[in-house]
């Protein structure tokens, strides 16, 4: 394999990631971090510890700055759903964390220390930890994450989101697995319908 192809591939992946990653900022120090465009109709997923206030400014890759309403927060899951008024967004593709194997390449994008769209690379550290129902809950990655990475995407080598970067534990990057995010969103939808 010619190294140029590897270069070109990670550049292509970075560009793909940039389009589905948003920068979130609140008023003053009231939260700042990243988020992932989860649905084309304006649903952004981020960490609860990023979306602290009732509204956030959402900066998209194309330069648009929209006002996002913090629709739901779960401190126990460290997840928040932010709704922006847009119907034409490019949503991130997702993949099961269940199939992740240690050593698999992963990438993270976010705004570490305020630097927008910064890319980090690493590998899956171990198999995902599971919730009580046996579904993937947390993905552990050997990757260097910084505070502004919170709420941003952790993706596989195909650019598919496998988790929302949430914390650093003993040096390991820890992301809330895609399955856990989807499960949470479904529970919210049921609760609303009921």
């Amino acid at each position, binding site marked *: 394999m010619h190294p140029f192809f590897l270069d*070109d591939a990670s550049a292509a992946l970075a560009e793909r990631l940039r389009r589905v990653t948003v920068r979130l900022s609140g008023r003053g120090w009231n939260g700042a971090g990243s988020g992932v465009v989860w649905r084309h109709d304006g649903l952004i997923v981020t960490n609860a510890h990023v979306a602290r206030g009732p509204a956030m400014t959402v900066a998209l890759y194309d330069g648009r700055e929209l006002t996002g309403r913090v629709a739901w927060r779960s401190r126990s899951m460290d997840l928040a759903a932010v709704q922006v008024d847009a119907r034409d967004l490019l949503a991130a593709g997702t993949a099961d964390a269940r199939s992740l*194997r*240690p*050593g698999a*390449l992963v990438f993270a994008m976010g705004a570490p220390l305020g630097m927008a769209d910064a890319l980090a690379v*690493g*590998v899956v550290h*171990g*198999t995902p930890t599971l919730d009580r129902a046996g579904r993937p809950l947390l993905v552990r990655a050997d990757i260097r994450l910084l505070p502004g990475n919170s709420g941003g995407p952790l993706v596989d080598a195909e650019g598919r989101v496998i988790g929302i970067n949430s914390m650093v534990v003993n040096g390991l990057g820890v992301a809330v697995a895609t399955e856990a995010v989807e499960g949470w969103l479904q529970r919210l939808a049921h609760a609303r319908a009921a």
Partner: protein
Amino acid sequence: MERAMAAEEGRLAPLQALSEGLTGAVERVARSVVALHARARIPSSAVVWREGIVVAAHHTVKRDDDIRVTLADGGDARASVVGRDPSTDLVVLRLSDGAKAAPAEIARDTPRVGQLALAVGRPGSDGPTASLGVVSAVGPSWRTWAGGEIDSFVRLDLAIYDGFSGGALVDASGRVLGINSSTLARGLAVTVPAVTVERVTAQLLEKGRVERGYLGLAMHPVRVGAASAARLELRHDRGLLVAQVAPDSPADRAGVLVGDVIVAAEGRPVDDLDDLLALLAAERVGTSAGLRVVRGGTLVEVPVTIGARPQRGE
């Protein structure tokens, strides 16, 4: 539009190939990486080096007998310590009969700078763990702070997590380059290269210990002083001040005294402890070494018969 998407997918193919390669390497070696339950809190990693023989990091194995082992297939086995070499942070254990554990494939070549490397461990029963980095420096043979001889200095640019020590460093095809240790070089990630592991393992299996030369001295580097050096016609003014002589040690029997300053050994100037430790390789045990010491302002030649370092408890 569809064609554009397909072209885009194709551009990512090299990353997927690399990712597949890395997971394949981890899976291959993980069959030979086991977990040892021989300390409090988290279990530590070990590598099946030969049939029925596992090698781990000495500092992570706090007991010698009836150690529980979690095998790659999730099964349990027992192991006991065959021998330890604290100076290279290695310990060799024998698995109980019938334990199913395939020996790892060992790389025979020396690691190269820039080579991709994965640290693979098994800190418990939740499967193997991996971290990725590169071999960042390869130097000549070196001596650890505990006096162990390691065939080449292999430093890694790789993060240290739970389970690093005693785990395998593997190349991109899953062959073992060495056994990792976080304690040999001031917390830096280093690996004890396979050739050293092989040598130490063979000695421990044969003798239960790694033999090393022994003088029985505690010393401190000092300067003799330029004027004294000139008067004694010494080529340099450094030496080792003898602070303590162990009773009935080789140095004691040879008549080395507290207060002597060793300025040369085997005709070569002595600057620091390393110069003297270089005399103490296993093959020197039983041979004689000439020490030149400054005693009461004069030079004295003291021949010492190098002994074998006593084991703890002897």
